[in-house]
């Protein structure tokens, strides 16, 4: 019951806080509209630029998916290299404050 109360209080509080930030971020935006010049672009760069010009929402969804996936992939590749070198990535021995 106590856990339920905590959840009931914490969830609206977190949502309210996030709404506030969203409003603050929206309020600070510049009214300038930036358009990508796609004339000299080809391939994936042209596609990205067209997407940016046509829909910021779709471009945002692409960014929000692509960035974490790329970060994870490169990070895991680095992990593989480090493991192959012989570094133990499962624990940290140093236990000092």
């Amino acid at each position, binding site marked *: 019951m106590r856990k339920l109360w905590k959840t009931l209080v914490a969830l609206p509080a977190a949502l309210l806080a996030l709404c506030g930030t969203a409003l603050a971020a929206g309020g600070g935006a510049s009214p300038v509209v930036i358009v990508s010049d796609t004339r000299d672009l080809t391939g994936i760069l042209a596609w990205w630029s067209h997407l940016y010009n046509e829909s910021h929402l779709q471009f945002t969804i692409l960014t929000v998916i692509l960035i974490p996936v790329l970060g994870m992939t490169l*990070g895991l590749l680095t992990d593989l290299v480090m493991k192959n070198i012989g570094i133990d990535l499962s*624990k940290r021995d140093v236990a000092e404050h």
Partner: protein
Amino acid sequence: MDWMYMLMPIAGVKIFWPGLIILGLGMGIIGGFFGMGGAWMITPGLNILGFPMAFAVGTDIAHMAGKSLISTLRHGKFGNVDYKLGFIMIIGTVVGMELGAQMLMWLERLGNIDLVVRLIYVALLVFITWMVFSDVQKRKAKDRAALAAGKELDKHAVGLEWHKTLHKIKIPPMVHLNVAGIYCSMWLPIFVSFLTGWLAGILGIGGGLIRMPSLIYLLGCPTHVAVGTDLFEVMISGLYGAATFTYKGRTELVAAIIMLCGAAIGAQIGTVATKYIKGYGIRIAFGWAVIGCLVSIILKLIGGWIPSVKSLCNDGATVVVLGTVTALAVVIFLGMVKGAAKEIADKKAAA
């Protein structure tokens, strides 16, 4: 050499792309090691590379989201992230940042606030520097006293013990933060995160520079847990920031991806370096990073006061920031290589 320059499709400028990778690598190492986003170091770097400032913040935040995600996961595996503390702190951080940002806008309407903000920033950085180095000195004094008494100092001993006084506040609900090894009132992390968020909102920064030392000195987190938990906060704010800035059309995705190629690798190097470097080593290096930031802001202040030396001071500030990034990244990288070499040698000797 034309192939070394790449057209940024949205910003419409050609950028020296290896510079983006090097900047990302350096900041990845520092971010993974100290647990901060490091926008104060990246923005001058992007500026030097010829990046339009309209895209600098959004691009920086987008790449930060990717690198902090992988660093948080690695720190989590090392047992450096207190997720419970992280979630509690999100509430205070968001509310504090919102209040700080609103307050900044209110102050801007009253008049020119730039100088006041920079002075607050300087005072805060002086305080953090003093806090870090006086903590180091006090711990050294304890170490010397223990040696003189023929004893060995407890490895969990610290110089400044403000957190012990704050832990005496017993306002319910009380929480056990198991990873950090803290039992305190839930209001303490909320208050600390609110305070750091409020300051970050007023100063217009991400807040890692303030939050990391606050986790150590006010909450009493071990250094490694402070780094990991702070990165968790950076990850959440980075993902949100990436979405909101991109939606406003202020992210150059190509540049963010190129920077991320260096940053994701650097973040892993910085995170693994914490495996070999003791808590107080991290604190001392952090103190030097804060000094670098402090000197760059003082130079900018001088440039504002004396117009004849403005460009010299601005250039000097950029050199100081990039010099700090390079020096710290090299030191952390060498620390990681040294530690890894010792670990591998020990394994071979044991086999």
